[in-house]
């Protein structure tokens, strides 16, 4: 097997975040931040429910999905009980904080300050009738899929 030294290091990543649950948003944020820490150019493209992560009103209130989420190892009916999602969210936020991962809003500021760019998907913004002021000030722009591909040129695209 070829060793990793035979390959060129990754220079640039464009990460798509398409889910709006806490467990759907964090992996993409961690990968973007990790890329910047390694000196890799990074941008984030938020689409569909992923937009919740950059909406001022929603970003710090994301929930863990306890229904339809086999990773929770919880029977569907149990997951549907009132308060179950809130409970799972509270537990996960506590564990996330313990390993020094910031809440979503603070994490986005940190990622943006590291030089990564944040973009919202034009189609989703139009679909939900959202305005620029609904989003975190760190947002670098609302762009089309075509513009996303232009910006992603020469790098790797990661879909989450």
């Amino acid at each position, binding site marked *: 097997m070829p060793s990793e030294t035979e390959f060129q290091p990754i220079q640039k990543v464009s990460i798509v975040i398409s889910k709006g649950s806490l467990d759907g948003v964090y992996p993409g944020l*961690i990968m973007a*931040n*990790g890329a*910047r*820490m*390694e*000196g890799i150019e990074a941008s984030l493209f938020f689409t569909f429910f992923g937009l919740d992560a950059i909406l001022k009103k929603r970003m710090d209130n994301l929930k863990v999905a306890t229904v339809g989420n086999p990773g929770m190892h919880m029977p569907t009916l149990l997951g549907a009980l009132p308060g179950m999602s809130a409970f799972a969210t509270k537990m996960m936020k506590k564990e996330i904080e313990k*390993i*020094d*991962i*910031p809440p979503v809003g603070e994490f986005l*500021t*940190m990622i943006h*300050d*590291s*030089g990564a760019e944040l973009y919202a998907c034009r189609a989703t913004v139009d679909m939900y009738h959202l305005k620029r002021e609904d989003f975190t000030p760190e947002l670098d722009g609302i762009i089309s899929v075509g513009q996303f591909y232009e910006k992603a040129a020469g790098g790797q695209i990661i879909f989450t």
Partner: protein
Amino acid sequence: MATVTILGKELAVDADGNLANLSDWNEDIAREMAAQDGIPNLTSQHWAILNYMRKVFEKEGSAPSIRRLTKESGVDTKTLYQLFPKGPAKRAAKIAGLPKPVGCI
């Protein structure tokens, strides 16, 4: 174990090229490693980060996360990336004479 020659001294390094022994490090060696890494001049802000990282490492056995680093060293994220471009945690750890950080954040 591999070695590098810095300021005429032969020093042991690990697989990542970081100093293997904490005690081999001193400020002159840090300045020389920084210069070789494209940082010709270590400012007081660079030192604030390097000294803070060494302090945490000596106490806890691992380098701090970037979040903690920026909260506790008094240097914000933007400045940190300007001071150590192309991978702040990794490069600062190297210049501070510490192993590569293992955390994800």
